[in-house]
Every structure is written in C-alpha cells, then in structure tokens.
C-alpha cells in the first residue's frame, strides 16, 4: 500500500500504566472514508490525538503521504493538511459562527500582528476575501442565517456541523472526525451525511470515529474496530460487524 494517504503503524499510547492505544495499525487510501468504532474508552479519541500530535507515541509511526509526522507539533500537522473536529462541541463555545469557521484557514493565513495593528491594505484585503469565502461556505450549507450567532447558543448538532465546516474551510488532505453524530438529532445526521458524502466525492480522505454503527457503515468503505486499545479487526462494514468477537465487544456493550 505505497499510495496510502494516512498510514498508522503499530501505534502505542500509554497514560501511566494504562495503554489507551495498544499496537494499532491502519491505512487509509486517498479519497477513502474510513471508520473507527469501539466501545466507550476504547481509545478512539486517543488514536486521533496521536495522529493530530496531541499525545506522544510510545511506539509506532504516523505517516502522511509517506512522510513521517513524528516530532511535528499539532499546528505543523494541520499545516500539512491533517485537520480534525472535536468530540466535545463546547470546546470553542465563545466564537460567533463566522469567526470560528474562518479559523479553519489559520494555517494558510498571513498572520501578522503588526499588519493588523497598522491595518495594512494587504492584510485587510486578505481578511475581506476570507470573510467572503466564509459567507459563501455558510451559504452553500444553508447556514447564512446563523453566521452571527454565538456557538454556545446553538443546538449541539449545529455546533458539530459548524465544527466540520471549520475543518473543511482549511481544505485539508485528511479530515479526522471525532463522533460527529453524538448528541445530534436524526435530521442533523442526514445533513451531516450529505456534507461528508459530498466532501468524499470531492476527493477528501476522511477518518470517522462514531458510536452510530449504522451511520459509519453507510458512510465508510472499511471499518476498524478497537476495544481496550487493541485492534479487533479491519474490513468492509458488513464483514466486520458479523464477527462474533466484534459483536461481543462492541455491539454487546451498546
């Protein structure tokens, strides 16, 4: 699999004595939508954190298009095209929708404090162009009417959708989604699936962690099941979900 976009190999992450992720490997091809499922505390978020660079690895490697990400800070990984959403929608509660979405392009922006202080024309122009892009993105998903709302005041599902739009706004190579459906209504899930299917058709590589097995199975080409930090198996959704150990560990725990 030399053409893997994301290649996670033999990753171990431990907190004290607890191995939250214990020798997990998976490979995601360009444009693929890959699912990760597993019971609470299985280590799914920690696995995404390992890819984003939020936790150090005890062992293993994470490669993006063949390049090792070891030693890169989270912001450097984002700049290389690894973007993600957060499991808790309340992480950035204080932003207005338009301001939060615009942060998705932080890596590519000219970030000059002096330029902003002096209101240099180049900075103002870039900012204005970006604002227009944010408006357009929000309009595409029918969210123009909430552009000025503060995230705290929006329903949980809408916040999660806004978080995804923020991540998409940066035009990532790989998008990591941590439980996009948790706390959302069924109608939100339909909208969510459309957004993700569209992004997939546009060539985005996506890793989806979720508890909604139906949602993940519909969306993904392949699934990885983890339990107690360990891999139970990887494969096509129907095939993986039929396995007895997966049923015992995951479906049984639901």
């Amino acid at each position, binding site marked *: 699999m030399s053409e893997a976009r994301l290649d996670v190999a033999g990753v171990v992450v431990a907190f004290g004595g607890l191995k939250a992720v214990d020798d997990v490997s998976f490979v995601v091809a360009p444009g693929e939508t890959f699912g990760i499922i597993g019971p609470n505390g299985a280590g799914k978020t920690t696995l995404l954190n390992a890819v984003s660079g939020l936790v150090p690895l005890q062992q293993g490697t994470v490669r993006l298009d063949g390049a090792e990400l070891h030693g890169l800070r989270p912001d450097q990984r984002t700049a290389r095209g690894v973007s993600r959403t*957060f499991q808790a929608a309340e992480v950035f509660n204080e932003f207005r929708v338009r301001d939060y979405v615009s942060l998705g392009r932080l890596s590519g922006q000219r970030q000059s404090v002096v330029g*902003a202080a002096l209101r240099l024309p180049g900075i103002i122009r870039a900012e204005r162009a970006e604002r227009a*892009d944010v408006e357009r993105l929000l309009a595409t998903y029918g969210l123009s009417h909430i552009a000025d709302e503060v995230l705290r005041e929006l329903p949980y599902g809408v916040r999660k959708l806004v978080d995804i739009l923020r991540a998409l706004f940066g035009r990532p190579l790989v998008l990591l989604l941590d439980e996009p459906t948790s706390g959302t209504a069924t109608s939100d899930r339909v909208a969510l699936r459309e957004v993700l299917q569209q992004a997939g058709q546009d060539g985005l590589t996506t890793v989806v962690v979720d508890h909604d097995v139906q949602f993940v199975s519909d969306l993904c080409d392949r699934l990885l099941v983890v339990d107690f930090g360990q891999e139970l198996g990887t494969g096509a959704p129907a095939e993986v979900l039929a396995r007895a150990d997966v049923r015992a560990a995951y479906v049984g725990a639901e």
Partner: protein
Amino acid sequence: MLDSQATTSRADGGGDASEPRGWRMVPSGPGLGTLVFVAIAMATVLAGGPYALYTGTLICIYAIVTVSQEWILGRAGLVSLGSAAIMAIGAYTTARLSETSWGLFPVPLLVSFVFGGIVGLLIGVPGLRFKGLYLMLTTLALQFIVMFAGQKYQGVEHEAGFLVTPPTWGSLPLNTPKALFIITAVVLGLVLFALSGIYRGVPGRVWNAMRQDEAAASVLGAHLVRWKLAAFIGSSAITAVGGSLYAYQAGQVSYNSFSLELSLTLLVMVFIGGLGTLAGPVIGAAVIVLLPILLDDLADAFAGLPDVANWLFINQATLANGLYGLLLLLVLLFERDGIFGLGRRLGRGALGMGRRLTTTRGEN
C-alpha cells in the same frame, strides 16, 4: 474545491446575514457613545486647571499600561507580575536619554518601545516555552532584578533618582500640563487604535481560541509559543512607553516608584475594569488614579470632625488597598466582566427595556 462549488450559490448570500440587527452592539470599533464620552472627558480635562490636567495625564499613562497588560492577561490568558519593572525600563531609558542628543522628543519614547519589546523577548522566551506558571515566575524575577539593579544603578549620587530633562521642540516646551496631557492622550489613542485592529483581525481570534482551549487551538493551527511571545513582546513594548511617559510627567525616575506593589495594583485594576474589552482596562486605570483622590476629598468633607478626617488622612493608603481588594472580590464573585461588563449589561438592559416599550405592537 469547496469554494468553486460554493460560487454557484447566490453571489452575495451573506449580505443580509452580516447586517447588524439595529440595537445590537457591534463588537468591532468604538460606538458613537464611546466617542461622545471620550470627547466630553477630553474637553473637561482640557478646560480644567493644572490639577485636572495632571490627573487626566496620569489616567492616560496608567491606561496605556493596563490596556497592554490586558493584552496578555485577557487575550493570551497569561499572568505577568512584572509590569512595573517594564515601566521602569521605559522610565530609566527616558531619563538617561533625555539629557543626551537622543533626547529629542519622541525619540526616547520610541527607544523605550524597542527596549520594552526586547526585554519582553528575553523574559518571554524562557517564560513561555513551558506551560503554566513559568511566565509568572520569570516576570516576578524580572521585578526583583529591576528593583535591585535600579537601586545599584542610582547609587548614592542619585539616591533620589535621575532627573528627566524636560522635552522641548525648539523653543516650544512639551512638559506643560496641557502639552503632556495631549501627548499622553494621543499615545493612548494610538495604542487603542493599534490594539483594536489586532483584536478584530486574525490575531485576536487566535488568542481567543487559545484562551478557550490551548491544545485545541494548536490543532486549529496556532503555534502556541509564537503567539504567546507575540502578545508578551507587544505588551511589554507598550508598557515601557507608559513608563517613558510616566518619567516625563514625574520629572524624576527612581526605582521605588516601580515596586511589585504597583505591578499587583495594575494587575488587579485590569481585572476590576474587565477583561476582554479595551474600555475595561481604561476604566481600571481611572480607578487607580481617582480612588486615592476621592479618599482625599472624603477626608476634606469630614473637616468638621477632625478625628475622622485625621484617621482618613492617615489611613488613606491602607483604605485604598482595602477598597481595591473589596472591588476585586466583588468582581470575582458577581461580575466576571468587571466594571465595564456591569455598565454594558445595565446599558443593554435599559436598551432592551426601551425596545420592548416601543415595539409592543406590530411585531412581525
């Protein structure tokens, strides 16, 4: 790719969404009310006597410092205990330059700005590489070092401090009360202009994100150390300018004017005025300057009761500290957004009520 498909939707679909809704406060830029208030305050001070000008100047100087301290405390979420020490660096720079050929105003001000920034860099690099209390400790160390070095530097010859040669432009003296007030007000205006540009742009959003969740902000793409350092260097440069203006007004610079107690008072005032706005720390600065004056007036008011007046007079400093403490407690317990937040909430309440009264009928 997302953009190309987005362009097919209505071209300016965001237009109506970006329209502020009438009464709602627009977060960027000073409102009409603020401008009117500033104009009235300026006119009152300018029409007043030397004492009003002196007080107004002092408020502007402290406001320059509190506003720059709010940058690190309220935006970047960092605690510094060294603001007085950085003021001292600007003040010493100004005193020493004022008697040389570099003393032409505003050269010492600009040099102080640069020195402040350099000190910010030197203190910030070790202080910000690590999380948590490091910056607090390095700035505390700076505070002690500056006090010690200042005392040694002044030695016995300059025990009372260095004199500041009054600034002039040719035959025009710049240290008259009126000229000093105008200068400090203009500098404060420039600082507020620069900071409002910074906060409403990308940098403001990045610090806001970092304050809400540092790790998550780094995932958004923020290089945490660099952004913290930028805030600390910028704020130190401005604080040193405050120290420079302080030197011009006082006419003399001595280390004991820049104690740890001043740093703490400034920190408390930033809290009391309110974090997250530019008006908050300005209000905090006004409180620092006006509270002791009000206590003086209070002592005068009790002139008929010599015992009370005397007690007030003797305990003025203690009383002021006690009131700062009380105000801080009240802010922490009841109004996290400080005095400015309280004022804004009352203002909004009044506006809301007015709106309800005028639009009870005909709502669509």
